[in-house]
């Protein structure tokens, strides 16, 4: 009928007409009440309940620009050319504004604040990770370093330390299944593709009792699916300096299902294969299905591979260095919500980390495989004012390592495994107005066996959690929490300072057994959090941690190879440690100018015998200032300023000539200089300072959009010191500096459809 009217109208002559439908870019649903004006004229209209619009224009116009606007949606400008026609039909997609999505996130956070007795876990949105200035591309772990309580090893690593604990003390969960190595080889890139992540939570204090496998923190990463209201395919294509990626997802009508598949790969090996014979890829799959109104099944998978194949220039048959590094996770999570007050959850998953390192073909080869099979269930229910949760979890971990040389050395450790069975109970209730209490207890049976080392262990361990939150008013609260934590496996790697802030490709994770009891820590936290007004969230938390038992690889291990039992007994030194500090976060969560200020005061020590020394993660002051600003013309800029006290290091005080004892010649005066080391970690590198800048411009192409992101990492090109070394070509030797990353520009294209 409308079209008939337009036809009759145009037949009368002297007018042009633009019509079409305005709809939501994500859900494809029509949008009513959208204001549409013709730029430079008084003409305009609003869409009807079907999202339909129609504007009559003078016949003399050859082109017009329509400006569409509606609360909660980004303004859209669309230029229309008539090309001699009197009638043009164009549909217009509008995207939800960041402001609106910010509001949703803030609302969810406030709900969590009111309902949990612990301080709200640190969280990051996908937007934060995408817009924040980046090193090559948005990266979860590099964004995390800007949160309070987090310190990092170096620019060359995405390893993070939480409140002074080493990176192995973080339990990283991907859809509830442990991920052993959350980064790619050498650690420069994390394993997390931002486009595959729904949300993350970092528990630094008040960690729930169900997690009792790491001393420092739990990083809970959830992959995302697709909004069920979307019609057809949706996805993202991205192209950066080093990698290209694609994300594709869609709802599926069958059983109310949706899926999202994400893949990313570096491509520099295709451009300069001789100079850079290295690549990595990673992929995520998330399938979510509501099989009934009350049952939901989530299948998730992750695979990453790093591959290095460096060959002799003169002889292609000779492999100088070969590395194959894999991480895999598969998980099934089943949820049953019987009513609004209960939730039954089953989880089952498998995780695997494997590596192969070969030098000169088979001269030196080491392989490792660590599997994790996990099966668990938990049930939570509101009952007479209590929120009860209990669960059972069993985790089986077999380990296989071998080291071989074709010169006759061959060691194989394949009969090492551990099993951890956990039962836990948590309760949260409000004994009086404005007070929330929660408590939890976990009982773990740990069993480990290693035939080669002849070391078994079977024991029960208890852990407890206590938290209280007192609401000063609707939006501010004081919190207190304490608990004890265990860790049952420790990595066999040289001390952090020896690895220089790089992640080694070998990862010999050893289950504790024999006389070695699990590592243990106690946490005490006192916090204050809330909102200063509608926009500003703050949290302030002081903490003190005591480490009763910490194991470090011993420098004096008895490498009596035929007696692996002796080696096992001496491979670790048992130490103690402590850490205390204050985390402060002030975050502006809503508005066109957003960001946060984070400050960390941290002291962290470990013992060596009776002596205590600062751990390599000890940083007295850490300050981050993050700002995002939404500018006109669809520009968004991000600024990150980072400052921290320099890393502790062991300085060199002097030098001496080292001579080998076993040399076959008697005319030997061969020697080389070695350095005398001072007190362990007693010195500080210069303070670390970095400024990163990014600018993102969004272009709209019909219903799709293209983000062009330009970033400058270390925009001031500050020469932050990674470590010192001495140049002995000079006499006396000259101290030289190996710096962290210089200024690194990057460009990234992200196309969404």
């Amino acid at each position, binding site marked *: 009928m409308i079209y008939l009217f337009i036809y009759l109208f145009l037949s009368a002559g002297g007018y042009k007409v633009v019509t079409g439908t305005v709809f939501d870019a994500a859900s494809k649903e029509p949008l009513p009440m959208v204001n549409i004006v013709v730029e430079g004229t008084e003409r305009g209209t609003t869409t009807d309940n079907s999202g339909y619009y129609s504007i009559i224009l003078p016949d003399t116009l050859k082109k017009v620009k329509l400006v569409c606007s509606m609360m909660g949606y980004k303004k859209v400008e669309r230029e229309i050319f008539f090309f001699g026609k009197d009638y043009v039909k164009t549909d217009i997609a509008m995207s939800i504004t960041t402001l609106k999505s910010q509001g949703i996130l803030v609302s969810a956070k406030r709900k969590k604040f009111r309902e949990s007795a612990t301080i709200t876990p640190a969280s990051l949105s996908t937007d934060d990770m995408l817009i924040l200035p980046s090193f090559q591309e948005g990266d979860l772990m590099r964004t995390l370093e800007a949160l309070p309580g987090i310190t990092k090893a170096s620019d060359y690593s995405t390893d993070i330390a939480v409140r002074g604990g080493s990176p192995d003390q973080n339990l990283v969960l991907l859809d509830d299944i442990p991920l052993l190595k959350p980064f790619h080889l050498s650690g420069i890139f994390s394993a997390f593709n931002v486009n595959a992540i729904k949300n993350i939570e970092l528990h630094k204090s008040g960690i729930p009792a169900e997690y009792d496998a790491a001393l420092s923190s739990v990083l809970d990463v959830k992959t995302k699916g697709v909004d069920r209201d979307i019609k057809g395919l949706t996805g993202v294509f991205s192209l950066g300096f080093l990698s290209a990626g694609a994300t594709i997802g869609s709802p599926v009508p069958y059983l109310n299902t949706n899926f999202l598949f994400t893949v990313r790969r570096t491509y520099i090996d295709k451009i300069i294969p001789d100079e850079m014979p290295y690549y990595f890829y990673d992929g995520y799959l998330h399938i979510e299905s509501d099989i009934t109104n009350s049952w939901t099944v989530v299948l998730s998978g992750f695979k990453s591979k790093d591959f290095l194949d460096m060959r*002799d220039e003169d002889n292609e048959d000779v492999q100088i260095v070969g590395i194959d590094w894999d991480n895999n996770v598969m998980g099934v999570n089943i949820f049953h919500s019987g009513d609004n007050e209960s939730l039954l959850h089953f989880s089952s998953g498998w995780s695997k980390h494997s590596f192969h390192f070969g030098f000169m073909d088979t001269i030196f080869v080491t392989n490792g495989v660590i599997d994790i099979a996990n099966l668990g269930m938990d049930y939570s229910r509101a009952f007479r004012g209590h929120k009860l949760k209990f669960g059972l979890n069993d985790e089986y971990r077999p380990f296989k390592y071998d080291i071989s040389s074709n010169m006759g050395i061959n060691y194989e450790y394949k009969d090492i495994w551990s099993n951890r069975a956990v039962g836990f109970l948590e309760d949260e209730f409000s004994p009086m107005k404005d007070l929330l209490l929660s408590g939890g207890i976990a009982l773990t049976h740990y069993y480990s066996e290693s035939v080669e080392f002849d070391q078994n262990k079977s024991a029960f361990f208890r852990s407890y959690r206590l938290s209280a939150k007192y609401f000063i008013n609707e939006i501010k609260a004081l919190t207190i929490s304490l608990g004890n934590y265990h860790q049952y496996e420790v990595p066999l790697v040289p001390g952090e300072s020896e690895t220089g802030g790089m992640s080694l490709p070998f990862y010999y994770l050893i289950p504790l057994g024999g006389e070695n009891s699990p590592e243990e820590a106690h946490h005490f936290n006192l916090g204050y959090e809330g909102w200063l007004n509608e926009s500003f969230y703050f949290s302030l938390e002081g903490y003190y941690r005591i480490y009763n038992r910490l194991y470090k690889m011993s420098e004096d291990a008895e490498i009596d190879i035929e007696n692996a039992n002796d080696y096992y007994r001496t491979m670790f030194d048992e130490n103690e440690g402590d850490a205390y500090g204050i985390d402060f976060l002030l975050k502006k969560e809503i508005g066109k100018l957003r960001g946060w200020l984070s400050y960390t005061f941290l002291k962290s020590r470990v013992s060596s015998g009776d002596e205590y020394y600062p751990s390599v993660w000890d940083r007295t002051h850490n300050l981050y200032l993050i700002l995002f600003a939404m500018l006109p013309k669809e520009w968004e800029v991000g600024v990150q300023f980072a400052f921290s006290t320099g890393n502790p290091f062991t300085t060199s005080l002097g030098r001496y000539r080292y001579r080998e004892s076993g040399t076959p010649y008697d005319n030997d005066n061969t020697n080389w200089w070695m350095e005398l080391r001072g007190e362990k970690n007693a010195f500080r590198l210069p303070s670390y300072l970095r400024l990163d800048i990014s600018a993102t411009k969004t272009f709209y192409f019909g219903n799709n959009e293209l983000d062009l992101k330009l970033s400058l990492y270390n925009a001031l090109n500050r020469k932050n010191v990674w470590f010192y070394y001495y140049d002995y070509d000079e006499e006396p030797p000259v101290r030289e500096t190996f710096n962290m990353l210089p200024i690194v520009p990057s460009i990234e294209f992200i196309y969404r459809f």
Partner: protein
Amino acid sequence: MKYNSILTVFLISLLFFSCESVTEGPFEHKYVINLVLRPNMKIQKAYVDSTYRLDATVPEGSQGISDAEIIAINEEQDTFKFSESDTTGIYYSDDSMWVKYNDRYFVQINVEGHQIEEEVNTPGSLLIHSPSNGDTISLDSPEIVYWNSCEGSFDDMYNASVFFEGEIDSFYISLLTQDTSLNVFSAKYLFPNVDTFYTLAVMAMDENCFKSDVYFDYDQLDEDFAMGVIGAVVLDTIKVWVTE
């Protein structure tokens, strides 16, 4: 409002923890000794050196400290003296062929008024039985190298090294084993040069030398004012001709 002041109190309290003083650590002068008794060597050698500040210039040509007095005494109470060579810091024994296999020696060094003492047990003899000196080895069918079990070797460990081109400053590979055999030539890619000599050495060390060489722990002396190693090594070397 009063609760907001908690923020202020916390922030101000940080000032009390903020200041750190980092002072330069003390440089500690030590004597650095290297005296390794080798039964199969005609003349024994000792180095008496010291530690140096990193910013101090070490005189060219000097290898250490002059005027040290070095003696070794065996179980028969025979005393063997060392005398300083033309090179500062290097000392040679006056007697020849006096260090025996499976023997005990008491070593005493006096340097600038300080006395350093150590008891040394020399391991038993060690001989490579196969291949023989001068043999030809083909990388296509490499031979396993055999030697005898050596009494007194720390942890029953042996260090097998292959020196490229037979020169001491040439590149070498070294492997530890508790076996008395090793197929060192099986990795053909490690030997890019063929139709040339390689030197093969098998060594057994006492504890001091083992920890110094394997762990790079050069502090094997009991005295606080000295470091280095006083120990014993036995070894056998052969030269083999390596072909494709």
